């Protein structure tokens, strides 16, 4: 059911994609679709429940913040997703699934024909069946084999070899030889072998690709929109929403309380404080007034300010960090996956064996035709069917198990690298800690005043007020009824209770206490109360560190925060720490460890961790991390607990154990089957049985990983 309302038919429609994580039921689908359909300028809205997304076709005049506001008005929080991400997703998996469908269809039909050949069809019938098989197999090999051929060709052109090289050679040679057999009315054709080989391998590829898509979907659904634009003041005093990419130096942005800056600039009017934690890792907010320079990506905590843009787009501090990340990520792209490492030894061995059996039989006087057929049998038998499935099957089962435990792994190679880790570096703010203020225990407010404090806290969206609200709501407090509640942005909230003035916010007594995060509750006629806040540790941090130690992984802190803020945490956890590290310092630290031969796991969340996350041998980020952090990390974990870090490593190591077992199974099967093939005893029937048998065993072994994340 797509809700459609009339719109000017000639208008060119723009399309926007929103992530709506709170979609839970059929009613939500109807509410969003019907609700949006009544909005003027929206032509159609279609919910994708699986991906928790809404696709909206609308008048280009409606901008993304307007649309997001409309969805919020219906009652759902929405975040825009850039259309570029959406476009990327379509490609690879679909191409592979199509190839797999074709190979599956062809395999079934050829097998059907082959069964009658194996059961004794002879003469003209056998020739007819071989010809039919050839007609089905040749187009299939050309279509379904394409992903392997292109990959093998790329590898060969760069002077390397990978799994796809023996696969391609085996499949092509088997097809060509079988075609020749068919011409000369020979008894053995390997069309079924070649096609079912492609089918099994494509199953492996599809699994690998589906796993990557699923993790990417989950991560894009998490990505919150940091300022992708700003309200810009125009010359005539009006203001207009401008996309981040179109902001230019010299423009003046209005930055509301709770908004992230979209560009670097200097404050022209207003006083406020800024949360730099995503950019520098510093936990305490920094005060800013006229003349202070502020950076893109930081969060305005206080009053609205006007900022004159000094640098935008590629010139901002954020863009510098992005460039550093690109460079750092190149090192990681050189990682060779285990299947390809195996292929380095496997491919030459297989080709030598096949070649030697050909030469051997020639010398024995078998004639070139029979010798070649035996060589083809060796190639088909040794073709890494079980090897091709061994890695992806184990990895997708493990990634599924981890996903259910709230750990999203971006791809299979991340699991491989995670298993090798022997050194861990943690960022502090937002990684070891929650990265948001929590009320310091014990709560300083006397119980009698809780309802008043809650009523005041509810009136503001300041992070401290929200923390107080969470704390008091957890006690089951009901808010008192206050009159004339007014929020003074950046200062506090004022209200009247039974004729007495009440105030929650900063006051003169707190000036000069720059480092302390705190606020004051004043009630006329009562002693003022100072409420302390702190950035608390995630749950299960000490236990996780203990588990890591048990796994032989040494850990330390690598923080951008000042030493005085890091010291208590480091001391409490018994970790050594490097403090005040800028992004380039973090990169250098990782470089040092890597240079000493360590495989570093980097866990971080901020923009400032981006380069380090990209440079680490493997990296993880919490779901509360910045976009940059989540994009750069190999795995993202949900929730307030730190335990997933150890869980992921344990699961990754179990996965690699299963992968190695799978390799052993594949090799063991070769040890039995290859001598048979070399002696010339393998017929297409035996090849088909051996191939499907070993594949099934490998898949069954991989399924044991379903409980890996427990």
């Amino acid at each position, binding site marked *: *059911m797509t809700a459609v309302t009339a719109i000017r038919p000639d208008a060119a429609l723009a399309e926007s994609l929103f992530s709506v994580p709170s979609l839970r*039921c*059929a*009613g939500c*689908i*109807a509410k969003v679709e*019907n609700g949006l359909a009544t909005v003027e300028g929206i032509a159609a809205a279609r*919910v*994708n*429940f*699986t*991906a928790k997304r809404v696709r909206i076709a609308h008048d280009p005049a409606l901008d993304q913040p307007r649309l997001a506001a409309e969805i919020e008005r219906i009652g759902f929080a929405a975040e825009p997703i850039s259309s570029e991400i959406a476009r990327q997703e379509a490609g690879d998996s*679909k191409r592979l*699934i*199509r190839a797999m*469908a*074709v190979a599956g*269809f062809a395999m*079934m*039909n050829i097998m*059907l024909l082959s069964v009658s050949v194996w059961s004794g069809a002879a003469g003209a*019938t056998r020739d*007819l069946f071989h010809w*039919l098989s050839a007609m*089905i197999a040749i187009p299939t090999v050309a279509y379904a084999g394409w992903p392997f051929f292109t990959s093998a060709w790329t590898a060969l052109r760069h002077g390397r070899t990978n799994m796809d090289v023996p696969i391609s050679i085996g499949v092509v040679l088997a097809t060509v030889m079988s075609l020749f057999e068919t011409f000369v009315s020979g008894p053995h054709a390997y069309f079924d072998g070649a096609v079912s080989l492609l089918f099994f391998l494509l199953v492996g590829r599809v699994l690998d690709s589906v796993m990557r898509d699923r993790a990417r979907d989950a991560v894009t659904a998490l990505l919150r929109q940091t300022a992708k634009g700003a309200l810009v003041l125009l010359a005539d005093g009006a203001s207009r929403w401008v996309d981040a990419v179109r902001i230019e130096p010299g423009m003046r942005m209005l930055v509301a309380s709770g908004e992230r800056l979209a560009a670097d600039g200097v404050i022209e009017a207003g006083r406020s404080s800024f949360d730099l934690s995503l950019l520098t890792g510093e936990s305490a907010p920094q005060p800013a007034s006229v003349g202070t320079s502020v950076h893109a990506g930081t969060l305005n905590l206080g009053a609205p300010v006007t900022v004159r843009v000094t640098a935008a787009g590629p010139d901002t501090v954020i863009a510098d960090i992005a460039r550093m990340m690109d460079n750092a990520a190149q090192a990681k792209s050189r990682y060779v996956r285990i299947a390809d490492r195996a292929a380095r030894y496997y491919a030459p061995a297989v080709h030598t064996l096949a070649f030697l059996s050909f030469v051997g039989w020639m010398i024995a006087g078998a004639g070139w035709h029979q010798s070649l057929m035996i060589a083809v049998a060796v190639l088909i038998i040794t073709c890494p069917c079980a090897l091709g499935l061994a890695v992806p099957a184990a990895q997708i089962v493990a990634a599924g198990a981890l996903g259910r435990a709230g750990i999203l792994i971006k791809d299979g190679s991340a699991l491989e690298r995670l298993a090798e880790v022997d050194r861990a570096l943690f960022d502090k703010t937002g990684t070891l800690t929650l990265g948001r203020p929590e009320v310091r225990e014990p709560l300083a407010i006397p119980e009698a005043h809780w309802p008043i404090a809650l009523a005041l806290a509810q009136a503001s969206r300041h992070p401290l007020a929200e923390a107080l609200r969470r704390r008091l709501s957890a006690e089951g407090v009901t808010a008192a009824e206050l009159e004339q509640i007014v929020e003074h942005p950046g200062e506090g909230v004022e209200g009247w209770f039974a004729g007495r003035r009440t105030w929650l916010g900063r006051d003169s007594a707190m000036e000069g206490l720059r480092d302390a995060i705190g606020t004051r509750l004043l009630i006329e006629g009562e002693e003022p109360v100072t409420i302390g806040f702190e950035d608390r540790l995630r749950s299960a941090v000490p236990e996780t560190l203990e588990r890591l130690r048990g796994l032989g992984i040494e850990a330390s802190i690598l923080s951008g925060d000042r030493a005085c803020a890091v010291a208590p945490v480091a001391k409490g956890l018994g970790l050594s720490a490097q403090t005040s590290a800028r992004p380039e310092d973090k990169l250098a630290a990782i470089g040092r460890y890597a240079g000493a031969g360590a495989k570093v796991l980097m866990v971080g969340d901020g923009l400032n961790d981006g380069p380090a996350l990209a440079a680490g041998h493997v990296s993880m980020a919490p779901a509360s991390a910045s976009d940059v952090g989540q994009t750069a990390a190999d795995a993202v974990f949900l929730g307030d607990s730190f335990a997933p870090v150890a869980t992921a490593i344990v699961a990754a190591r179990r996965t690699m154990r299963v992968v190695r077992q799978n390799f052993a199974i594949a090799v063991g099967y070769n040890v039995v089957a290859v001598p048979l093939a070399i002696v010339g005893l393998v017929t297409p029937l035996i090849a088909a049985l051996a191939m499907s048998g070993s594949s099934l065993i490998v898949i069954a072994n991989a399924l044991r990983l379903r409980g890996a994340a427990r």
Partner: protein
Amino acid sequence: MNGLSILIPIALLLGLSSLAAFFWAMRTGQFEDLDGAALRILIEDTPEPEEPGRAR
């Protein structure tokens, strides 16, 4: 042999048609929203017209 010349084309045709059906389903996005499709049958196509003042 005569039976074969009829049965084999039929078998191939059936297989091909299901392959074509699968391709069509992929192209038209039938697999895009599997969970949503299960829920959509619960949604009423048109909201019930409001008829105030009329007892049921």
